[in-house]
């Protein structure tokens, strides 16, 4: 079965990203397909490469990146939400005159249409939020 995953909250403050990660990992292990993971609202914060969590705790961002690497996951960060919260890739930096980027290379920034498309293409949309 084909799943689309929506994540509304950033890493650490809320459990949403943790629950979504464990759901996604388990679904993949059971042979299901993850059409896309869409990060919306503060969820865009899951896509930064600049975090340094405590060494004895899980690394939320890297964990997503490793799962993406292993299963060719499509990790999409909403551009409008990202602009409000300062999540930036090369294109956004150039467009908005920013002197730095912070996106992790396993994530990509794109539009809300990617969420709609995921909901159309997938058999199930599962939303994780606050």
């Amino acid at each position, binding site marked *: 079965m084909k799943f689309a995953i929506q994540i509304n909250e950033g890493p650490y403050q809320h459990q949403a990203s943790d629950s979504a990660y464990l*759901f996604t990992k*388990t679904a993949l292990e059971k042979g299901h397909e993850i059409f896309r993971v869409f990060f919306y609202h503060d969820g865009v914060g899951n896509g930064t490469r600049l975090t340094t969590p405590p060494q004895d705790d899980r690394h939320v961002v890297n964990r997503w990146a490793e799962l993406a690497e292993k299963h060719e996951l499509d990790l999409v960060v909403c551009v409008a939400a990202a602009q409000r919260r300062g999540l930036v890739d090369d294109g956004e930096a150039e467009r908005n005159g920013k002197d730095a980027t912070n996106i992790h290379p396993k994530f990509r920034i794109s539009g809300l249409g990617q969420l709609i498309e995921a909901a159309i293409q997938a058999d199930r949309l599962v939303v994780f939020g606050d």
Partner: protein
Amino acid sequence: MSELHTVNKSPFEKNSFDSCLGHVLEGSAVLLYEDGVYAALKGTATEGKVKAAQGVKFYALGPDLKARGLAQDRVSDGIEIIDYAGFVDLATEHDKVVAWV
């Protein structure tokens, strides 16, 4: 169509659990996870609400119960404890997932 409803907030803090209960149809399932597992506690006001929900099947996520120190004997009768594999199965077995975030 059969529905899986999910609740991830404490019923003592937010109205998500009560709102969910007001919107489930017979034959639906409700999954309690994250702080939503507190709605599974015996000896609370939510216990009666779970019992009163006609034809609704309740599940609670074991990993979240364990994290919060809630042993199986604290969980109201009639609530089935499942793991993440069970969560994925519920999502596939029902026609859609409604999240009461």
